[in-house]
């Protein structure tokens, strides 16, 4: 699966965090699916993500760029200048520095994107080369995520879709485009008095902007370009979830994860699983009760027994907990010799010829631990801080292993195995309790080494299997 990130604000903390996570995931995937420590196919971390040399694309890459400098306003003919002045306001649009994004002004983004897409970059080259690789009769699927109320995303959503469709026609490739449009789902406090209000977007404007944008999309998809999107998913949250801080952009902007983003990811999975014959649709996420439990989360496979998303995500979360709290500390270089005589170690590690003390194994374990910590931090952050207005989000119950602070964020408490952590493992995926860490340990001790993995993959695969719901 090819992946690309579009952001005008290249220094943005959210973008940096995403790139770091992607790099961590890809490193782990390469080691656990291609190297000497193999996992079974279609299991833990099995999705392949590929990117161009640089995963991100910024439409205007010049330093201190403004719309005027990008379009070379001074060199324009008089008629062009007049048209330009009619379309864009001077102070907050034409002369505003765009290094930290389009600041919620979608019209600026659209102009910049069309112009920038004309000058080719690695981002587009990669996409078009992928189109060239599509066999006859096959189709390419592209899924776009964007907010409807922002700047880059709102402008890029239809613009990038149009560019891809046009390119696909030129390459004679059948392409299906799906997209998740994020309606307002969060809010943040107003900026301090020192920040000029006109140069930023206030969260109270989200609803008005969204309404305008939806009218635009209605017009676009009904009259102008009905076949542009094959599937559109509209996602939001009511009441708006509180972000708790204001940042104009840049490195310090690191928004906490929120539930609608998970729904967006599920929308993409749904799109990639659609039959070729499925008709275009616009789908809207909603819920039937105030609080959010697994019953409110869409399933991917309606024919599956039970809730498939809960089962898969639950197992991943439980694996992360079990690995961090019960195994990783004892697989470190100075700890593991004490446990070499235990059954699980002999069967799943020693018999698989894994040299636990070696640098590559220690590096792999440390990267996996980091990934697990990121995953658990994400799961903890999904639950809003208690508040009478905000609905309860009861997908993961990890309060016993994490401390949350509105300022410093999430701190995981997984250093030693206590009864609280054992309980948390059993009750991590509500409702009810699932197999405890003792059952997992017993399972590992009884497991056979032919789980389908190689090297350290034998142990990790077995642990992952044992963490089922």
């Amino acid at each position: 699966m090819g992946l690309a990130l579009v952001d005008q604000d290249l220094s943005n903390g959210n973008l940096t965090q995403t790139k770091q996570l992607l790099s961590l995931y890809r490193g782990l995937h390469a080691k656990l699916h291609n190297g000497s420590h193999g996992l079974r196919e279609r299991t833990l971390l099995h999705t392949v993500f590929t990117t161009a040399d640089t995963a991100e694309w910024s439409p205007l890459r010049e330093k201190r760029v403004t719309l005027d400098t990008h379009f070379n306003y001074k060199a324009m003919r008089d008629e062009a200048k007049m048209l330009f002045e009619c379309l864009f306001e001077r102070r907050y649009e034409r002369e505003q520095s765009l290094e930290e994004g389009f600041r919620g002004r979608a019209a600026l983004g659209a102009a910049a994107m069309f112009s920038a897409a004309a000058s080719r970059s690695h981002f587009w080259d990669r996409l078009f080369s992928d189109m060239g690789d599509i066999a006859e009769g096959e189709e390419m699927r592209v899924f776009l995520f964007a907010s409807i109320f922002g700047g880059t995303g709102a402008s890029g959503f239809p613009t990038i879709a149009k560019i891809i469709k046009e390119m696909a026609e030129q390459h004679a490739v059948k392409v299906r485009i799906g997209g998740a449009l994020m309606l307002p789902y969060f809010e943040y406090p107003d900026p301090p008095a020192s920040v000029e209000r006109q140069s930023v977007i206030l969260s109270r404007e989200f609803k008005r902007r969204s309404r305008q944008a939806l009218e635009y999309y209605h017009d676009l998809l009904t009259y102008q370009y009905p076949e542009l999107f094959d599937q559109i998913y509209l996602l939001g949250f009511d009441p708006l979830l509180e972000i708790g801080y204001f940042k104009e952009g840049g490195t310090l902007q690191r928004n906490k994860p929120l539930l609608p983003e998970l729904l967006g990811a599920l929308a993409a999975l749904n799109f990639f699983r659609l039959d070729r014959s499925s008709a275009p649709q616009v789908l809207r996420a909603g819920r039937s009760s105030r609080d959010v439990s697994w019953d409110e989360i869409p399933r991917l496979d309606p024919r599956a027994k039970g809730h498939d998303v809960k089962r898969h995500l639950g197992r991943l979360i439980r694996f992360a907990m079990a690995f961090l709290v019960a195994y990783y500390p004892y697989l470190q270089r100075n700890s593991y010799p004490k446990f070499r005589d235990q059954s699980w170690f002999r069967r799943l590690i020693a018999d698989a010829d894994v040299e636990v003390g070696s640098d590559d194994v220690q590096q792999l374990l440390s990267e996996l631990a980091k990934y697990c910590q990121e995953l658990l931090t994400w799961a903890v952050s999904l639950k809003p801080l208690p508040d009478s207005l905000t609905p309860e989000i009861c997908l993961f119950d990890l309060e016993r292993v994490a401390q949350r602070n509105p300022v410093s964020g999430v701190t995981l408490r997984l250093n030693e195995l206590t009864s609280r952590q054992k309980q948390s493992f059993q009750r991590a995926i509500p409702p009810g309790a699932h197999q405890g860490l003792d059952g997992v340990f017993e399972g590992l001790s009884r497991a056979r080494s032919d789980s389908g993995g190689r090297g350290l993959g034998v142990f990790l695969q077995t642990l992952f299997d044992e963490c089922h719901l």
Partner: protein
Amino acid sequence: MKVARPVPSTAEMTKARLAYHPSFRTAVDLLAKATIWLAVAALAYLVAGALLDLPTPLQGLVRPKLRAASFLPALYQSAIDAILIAGVCAFLWWAIAKAWKPASPREALRFQRVWWLLSVVFTGLILAVFHYVVLKDAGPVTRATRAIFLVGYLLSSWGFFLVSVLALSPLTVASAVPGSALVSRLKRS
């Protein structure tokens, strides 16, 4: 080379489902805990009976034969006692292992240490039983008979150890016990 995961048989699936069924697990845990308390109470009664000279089942069983002071009945009695004690202790170990399940390698290590400690305590208890219950007021007992009983009880105290290893293997708690690696290998072969 990638190896396909073997598909579990229906019997294996049923066994796994049953083993993880909450009510089954609760029942087994309750049984295990009850066994521990019963065994501890029985041992306490045995020791207290010896100290306070109360009648105990073991006394009634053993003494008439001991008084006969003949070699063969003593040997038989010793063997029967050894098997009985080994069986009771193995069951007790099984119950402990069911009631206290290690949840991590570190807990398993702790469990193994407690395992060794309890083994020593149990051996001491068995020797106390031997001394107070069997030999006290036993009348004239030859050195050979006394030696046979002593060896028999000592063997039985370690016999339960091996029996419990066989019963629990390949559980983690058994993995560090001498002989369990051999048992695992035999099972796998």
